[in-house]
């Protein structure tokens, strides 16, 4: 799991060096049974692979769950992770989503201190720019909801930093492959932009 504090303070650094880090999103179809998730997590820890985020939910078939894991490493590490997960008796499918065009989403709930007036107006501007939502509000605080790929979430949090952020909770990534191959160009542009 990403450490909130670290994410806040270094999000731009993460952005500018994202090419080196090589994050990968792996999608695993695993039996919806007790212990199967710990088997997957155990594979990661036993081999010293770090899990950045992990998300699990039911699929159309209730007996199977989809588990989305974001991890980092070079191509060989990722290949190993995929093969090791594929060995498990209750894993039906392992896919490196990031290897082909895909859509990736993460959601964040952000509790930020903000006084009425100009400050609140500035936040509302950011909310509009990022197409976020205000889900709760009091005289001193707001709770904002945002979904998007992790870079967008990182950037939003960064933009909120001049205000006082009290708490951030992030869901971790879910991902799905695109229907058409056209995303490739866009994804590359995005990465290039991030690197610049």
């Amino acid at each position, binding site marked *: 799991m990403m450490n909130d504090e670290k994410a806040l303070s270094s999000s731009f650094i993460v952005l500018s060096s994202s090419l080196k880090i090589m994050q990968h999103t792996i999608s695993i179809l695993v039996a919806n049974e007790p212990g199967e998730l*710990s088997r997957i997590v155990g594979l990661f820890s036993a081999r010293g692979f770090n899990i950045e985020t992990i998300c699990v939910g039911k699929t159309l078939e209730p007996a199977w769950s989809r588990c989305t894991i974001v991890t980092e490493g070079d191509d060989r590490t990722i290949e190993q992770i995929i093969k090791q997960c594929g060995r498990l008796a209750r894993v039906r499918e392992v896919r490196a989503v990031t290897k082909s065009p895909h859509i990736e989403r993460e959601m964040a709930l952000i509790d930020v201190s903000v006084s009425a007036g100009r400050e609140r107006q500035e936040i509302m501007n950011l909310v509009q720019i990022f197409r976020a939502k205000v889900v709760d509000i009091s005289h001193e605080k707001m709770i904002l909801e945002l979904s998007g790929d992790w870079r967008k979430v990182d950037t939003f949090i960064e933009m909120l930093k001049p205000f006082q952020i009290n708490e951030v909770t992030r869901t971790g990534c879910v991902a799905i492959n695109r229907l058409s191959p056209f995303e490739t160009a866009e994804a590359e542009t995005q990465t290039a932009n991030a690197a610049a």
Partner: protein
Amino acid sequence: MTSVANIPAVSSVPAAAAQILETVKTPAPRGAEILVRGLIKNGVETVFGLPGGAVLHIYDEIWRFRDEISHYLVRHEQGAVHAAEGYARATGKVGVALVTSGPGATNAVTGIATAYMDSIPLVVITGQVPSTMIGTDAFQEVDTFGVTLPIVKHSYLVKDVRDLEAIIDEAFQIAKSGKPGPVVIDVPKDITAMLCDNPRKLHAEYLFESKEETIDETALNLVVEKLINARQPIFYVGGGIVTADAANELMRVVETLQIPVTPTLMGLGGFPTAHDLCLGMLGMHGTYASNMAVSESDLLVAVGVRFDDRVTGKLATFASNAEIVHIYIDPSNIGKVKKAHVSLIADAKTALGKIAEKLAAADQTEISDGVKNRESWWLKVNDWRNSAPFACEYSQTEIKPQHLIEELYRVTNGDAIIVTDVGQHQMWAAQFYPFKRSRQWLTSGGLGTMGFGLPAAMGAQLACPDSQVVAVVGDGGFQMTNQEIITAIQYKIPLKVIIMNNGYLGMVRQWQEMFYDRAYSEVDLSISPDFVKLAEAYGAQGLRAEKPEDLKRVLEEGLNFKGVTIFDIVVSKEENVFPIIPAGQDTRNMILK
């Protein structure tokens, strides 16, 4: 005709009463019965175990089914799992161990890990506290599922008695299919008591369908082409040959092509050591010839091996001039340690069988040209062979360990199944007992478990009553599991255990001598029990040899004895295993003496 007349009398019983009668006759079986019947259905004849509170219902059924399934009562659960492993290693069948919850399960862990590292098919049934008490720190409760998680191929915690039958069937399937391994079934006590006549299927039906691998035809043709044309090729073969029973296919391929073969520690027996094409064992304590040949090869054909660090030494320099062909059943092992140029995902038997077929169909002049082109390679290889063969040591005054193994080979005509622990004795046995066939060499390779040999030999002897089984162990490892001698006595298993007694934890002492300035830190075992008296206390035959001239007589006497024999063979104290490649170094840095 009279019998027909009798029928109305039988059917005159009222229908309702007949139904009641039926229910009384066959009540729904309880979980424990389903479990034991499941074992029998899956062909299990032999179970090693030790009872306890959580498995009382199961043991009650073991008692009821005692004519159909033989249970061997060990004295420590580690012994049960090792014995099951010995049984599995000697036959290729799935070994079965049955232990209770808590300490029963934790004692079994070493055995499970040993089987996991060497890919041995096992089903280990562990009792568990009643499901209502799981998580309450109940008496003899341990999270067996969690504890064994990283050392099993698969595991179950049975939560519903209706799943039990499917779980047993699936466990055997998983244990022996693909790359074999241990499967743990954790069964809570209440599940074994519950009655059930409506079993259900789990994920069993779609478990294997998507995992079938087919050999890539292009890769296969490429491999065959490389094999035919390679100038300096070598086959590096491992446990996969033994597991897949691929010895014949391997022989066909290498004899056709006249390519040298080097087996790993786990691959010993998969190719006859004494064969002309065999260069002997590869790796840290392997032959000079095989290590040099791998270093200088231009094509390394790795079959059923996983590039273990005890084989490769320093990875960067291992077979650095060679193209690597990796044939392995489990895709996760391909490219894990060393990048393969071509890989075939298949078991050794299938892959080598296909290669042999292609060779038979190939242009035979091309093949014979290839063989001719390799003549200069063979000159080099034979030079290495002759320059530094394994050297057996002899002495007039003391028994040299290498001499002991040679003598054992002679006395057993080279036919015995040899079972070892880990350490110096293991390496000498590997070096000086030329194996003829698969499953003749049973050793704890990956985990390197002291105490493996004695109980595993017991299991192997039960599995192969017509073979001579000999455990060769050190004085250190022997003392870790010698309680199982009494198990062998109880069941009249003619266990033969040779203790290579040098009064040291020998391999550690050797490393301290060579790499730690002879600081012999905590390796002295000179204070040991009198092993002959110990054997006699168990009711076994105890024999000792201290002088070279006694060796042959003592071995013959003990091996001909129709019962359990413990040999205390006192060997020279500070003998070292050579050659040795220091851990993590280039294989060319082999120390020969």
